[in-house]
């Protein structure tokens, strides 16, 4: 039988080339690296330095292959991780070429010469690329018989990362990561030849290099943990995890980070009922393969000794004593029913909730307490913000603005948003976009922060509180930015700090309408976006329909199985109003989730309200300022011990399931469900799954989505004059501070940035402050003394971190944009 010969000439599409790999014809896109082409064919070429998210380096030479170009073989084997495909190339990997195989074996033997044989006690042993590839591609014996090179071990790169130099194979993944991805080149290659090693500022004289600030202190990177994860040999280890356990006795479960709204996929590894470490998960749409140090290392709060594990009630003597669930729920139910029947009760949820938990709070407030007094914002907030959230944020999905659109954007404007501190993965994306795609990043802020520098950004400096005017002034004063924002793919990112600046949301809305750019809101806490969607706000129902909308209420009453007209129609009070009402006796009870009074706009007033209100029910993990005043404390589960869903800033659903089972800890939704049953109502939020399906069924999408006309009319507030002798305060929370989810992490705390008072040289001179000394900012309420650092702030503006570690709001009673007195020296 004869078959007509098949036409073997395949079309080569535009932008592609044809080459032969191991005798197989392949079509590959131009610019693809040989190592990836081979990978697509199923041939894994061993490698150490190659990482798909880092620039090619060709440092380890492990990926050698034989290459033939235009019929002429190259004289020596080539590194396939740096060589791109070309038309007519003939590549022979270790599969078909003895030369490549021998070359790889030789390189492996050389790499292993100085590599210690401590695999059994190495943290990486079991998940080590060197171990695996030595088994797969290495010689079974070594010809090296001399003493191996040793170094004193370990040296600490930061308090968090330790380096064992003899294990290092000099692949430079870590240095490339810190240089390219994070932008903190805190480690680099030192010395030459056999003495070549990875070193830090302490091990070499590189004090004048870019890795140091002007004052000569080494950078504290927020992303140093990633170097541990990408290290292919276990040379970099984490101080918190070093020698604690082995990959093979850990149980891994996928999880989602609870710290900020970036929504990172994580991998949580545990054993014996205890979380041992967390690694960045692989999610190309969100965090790629990175995570920040806070997400990676701050998880021990859940295992803290002072964790509340049993309900507590306040006895006659005023002490909190452990009680049974029955008793505690009974006490809480009785008090809340009494409060509901008289002046009412308010709900403060805090920013740590999953969507399911926030939804349970929403239902609890609306059904059980029959009130709209619920607010998730445990931070400075405004009515204007609520309007903005209702009109522009609620209901948006990643189709609106996502990480991918940041990467594609021609220009990104960050307003009242410090990406590195508030959403580190957004920062990484902005840096990637700026570095690889040439995205222009603009920041409306006060000084050239590391976010501005590392996103190759442009700072539009303004006074704190003057951001709204700055946004309004873009058309006039920053024509290039205005033009850039007018392009289709531009994005504006607004931080939740914008609520502290009157008129800023209006200005941003106007800007968006004028230029047609998309606006995304990036809150600081992981639970805020989900809580908004779940309706844990005084004016919105789950899904985003306004409370005042009768038809939306009717729809919700039907799906919740309520009698018609039982839903409260009046918009409720926001956090500040609830606390004020509680202090003055207009509210009889407060149900408080994870709220730290120090974050609230007026911590003193919040504490007073908690002390004065008739009844406080606290749902907490660990004793806090709220439990001090609580009458009943109900323990709830941390994320490791529950199932749930976060919504990240994009509106992307980030579900995660329970990691540690059988600890007996209950999620908020379950606790509230049981409490509601005590109060003769059913929330149907017994489990996270039930709560989620009830939420998906019940969300009422607003009929009139769109901008709120009020916002156009609201003028940008002009900055009030600063009285003589005072300066304006700029402040925000840094990524690593004394937040309640970062306790018991001494190693992590060591990488926190120094708390300093920043000001310009001119300001310092005017107020008698000298560089390198301490200065004090004060209000009539209190004073805060910090070391001074000179930065490019506008005149008469100082910047201080919001936690240093005292809360600036607690001490000074003032926040971003307030006037404070500045004087040199300590008070």
């Amino acid at each position, binding site marked *: 039988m004869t078959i007509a010969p098949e036409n073997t000439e395949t079309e080569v599409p535009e932008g592609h080339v044809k080459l032969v790999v191991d005798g197989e014809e392949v079509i590959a896109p131009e610019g693809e690296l040989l190592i990836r082409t081979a990978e697509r064919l199923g041939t894994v070429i061993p490698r150490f330095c190659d990482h798909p998210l880092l620039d090619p380096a060709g440092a380890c030479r492990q990926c050698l292959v034989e290459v033939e170009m235009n019929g002429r073989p190259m004289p020596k084997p080539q590194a396939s991780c740096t060589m791109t495909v070309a038309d007519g190339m003939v590549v022979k990997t270790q599969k078909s070429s003895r030369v490549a195989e021998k070359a790889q074996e030789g390189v492996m033997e050389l790499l292993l010469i100085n590599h210690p044989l401590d695999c059994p006690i190495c943290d990486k042993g079991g998940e080590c690329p060197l171990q695996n590839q030595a088994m797969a591609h290495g010689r079974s014996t070594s010809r090296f018989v001399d003493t191996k090179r040793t170094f004193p071990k370990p040296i600490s790169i930061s308090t968090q990362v330790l380096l064992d130099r003899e294990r290092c194979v000099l692949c430079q993944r870590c240095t490339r990561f810190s240089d390219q991805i994070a932008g903190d080149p805190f480690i680099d290659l030192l010395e030459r030849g056999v003495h070549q090693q990875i070193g830090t500022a302490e091990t070499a004289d590189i004090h004048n290099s870019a890795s140091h600030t002007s004052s000569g202190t080494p950078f504290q990177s927020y992303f140093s943990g990633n170097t541990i994860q990408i290290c292919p040999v276990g040379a970099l280890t984490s101080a918190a995890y070093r*020698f604690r356990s*082995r990959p093979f006795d850990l149980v891994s479960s996928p999880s989602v980070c609870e710290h900020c709204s970036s929504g990172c996929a994580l991998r949580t590894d545990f054993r014996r009922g205890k979380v041992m470490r967390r690694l960045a998960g692989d999610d190309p749409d969100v965090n790629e393969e990175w995570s920040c140090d806070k997400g990676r290392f701050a998880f021990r709060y859940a295992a803290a000794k002072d964790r509340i594990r049993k309900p507590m009630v306040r006895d006659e003597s005023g002490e909190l004593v452990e009680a049974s669930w029955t008793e505690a729920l009974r006490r809480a139910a009785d008090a809340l029913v009494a409060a509901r029947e008289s002046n009412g009760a308010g709900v403060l949820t805090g920013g740590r909730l999953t969507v399911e938990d926030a939804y349970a709070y929403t239902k609890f407030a609306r059904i059980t307490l029959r009130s709209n007094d619920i607010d998730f914002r445990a931070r400075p907030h405004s009515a204007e913000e609520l309007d903005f959230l209702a009109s522009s944020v609620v209901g948006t999905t990643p189709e609106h603005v996502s990480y991918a659109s940041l990467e594609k954007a021609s220009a990104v404007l960050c307003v009242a948003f410090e990406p590195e501190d508030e959403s580190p993965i957004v920062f990484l994306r902005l840096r990637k976009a700026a570095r690889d795609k040439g995205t222009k990043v603009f920041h409306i802020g006060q000084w050239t922060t590391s976010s501005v520098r590392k996103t190759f950004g442009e700072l539009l400096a303004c006074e704190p509180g003057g951001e709204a005017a700055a946004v309004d002034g873009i058309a006039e004063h920053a024509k290039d930015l205005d033009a850039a924002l007018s392009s289709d793919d531009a994005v504006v990112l607004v931080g939740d700090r914008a609520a502290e600046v009157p008129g800023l949301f209006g200005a941003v809305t106007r800007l968006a309408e004028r230029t047609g750019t998309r606006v995304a809101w990036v809150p600081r806490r992981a639970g805020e976006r989900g809580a908004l969607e779940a309706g844990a706000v005084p004016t919105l129902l789950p899904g985003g329909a306004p409370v005042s909308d009768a038809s939306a209420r009717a729809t919700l009453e039907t799906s919740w199985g309520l009698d018609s007209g039982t839903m409260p129609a009046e918009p409720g009070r926001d956090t500040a109003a609830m606390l004020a009402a509680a202090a003055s006796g207009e509210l009889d009870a407060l149900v408080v989730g994870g709220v730290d009074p120090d974050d609230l706009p007026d911590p003193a007033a919040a504490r007073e309200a908690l002390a004065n209100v008739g009844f406080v029910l606290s749902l907490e993990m660990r004793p806090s300022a709220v439990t001090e005043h609580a009458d009943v404390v109900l323990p709830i589960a941390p994320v490791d011990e529950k199932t749930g869903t976060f919504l990240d800033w994009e509106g992307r659903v980030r579900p995660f399931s329970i990691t540690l089972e059988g600890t007996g800890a209950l999620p908020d939704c379950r606790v509230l469900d049981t409490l509601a049953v005590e109060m003769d109502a059913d929330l149907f939020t017994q489990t996270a799954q039930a709560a989620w399906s009830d939420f998906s069924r019940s969300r009422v999408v607003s009929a009139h989505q769109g901008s709120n006309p009020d916002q156009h009319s609201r003028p940008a507030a002009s900055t009030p004059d600063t009285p003589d002798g005072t300066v304006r305060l700029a402040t925000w929370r840094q990524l690593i501070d004394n937040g309640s989810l970062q306790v018991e992490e001494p190693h992590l705390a060591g990488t926190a940035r120094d708390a300093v008072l920043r000001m310009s040289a001119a300001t310092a001179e005017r107020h008698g402050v000298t560089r390198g000394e301490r200065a004090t900012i004060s209000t009539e309420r209190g004073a805060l003394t910090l070391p001074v650092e000179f930065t490019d702030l506008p005149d008469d503006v100082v910047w201080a971190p919001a936690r240093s570690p005292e809360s600036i709001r607690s001490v000074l009673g003032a926040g971003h944009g307030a006037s404070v007195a500045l004087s040199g020296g300590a008070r």
Partner: protein
Amino acid sequence: MGMFDPLKGFGVTFATMFKKVVTEQYPEDFYPSAPRWHGRHQLNRHPDGLEKCVGCELCAWACPADAIFVEGADNTEEERYSPGERYGFDYQINYLRCIGCGLCIEACPTRSLTMVNFYELADDDRRKLIYTKEDLMAPLLPGMEEPPHPMRLGENEQDYYVQGPELARGRGVPEGETVETSKEEAIQ
């Protein structure tokens, strides 16, 4: 079967009466086991008394019966139990699980865990058969000092591992008493 075969049987019994008694009078007399008999475990010490265990948990991982529990902790300059970074903070062997296979001894990278010939372990309380670190620690020999104490024999752990026997002699550990595991260590 022959006619005298039954008598032959009695003959064996009768003859045995004149032979040497084979019975070991065990509790009264003691017959040492073979030198490499797998008896109870022991956690060894360096010649200055520091522990050899580094809390690496390889023994626990090697154990087929899951009889070993180890948890390591960090040495500090103020409180040092072993040379190097880590020491075994908690060490337990459950003798009701241990099958005496000796895989843990093979796994131990520092020769900290070895077996002695002692075997009279029976007890009426299962909790007492979970041996803790205090039970398993080798006794202090002359020249040894109960940890925690600083490294007396060198700057770092390398000195301890590389020149153990010389250090032991210098430390005055009696001849014949080995701070290493057994006689075979010398051959190695």
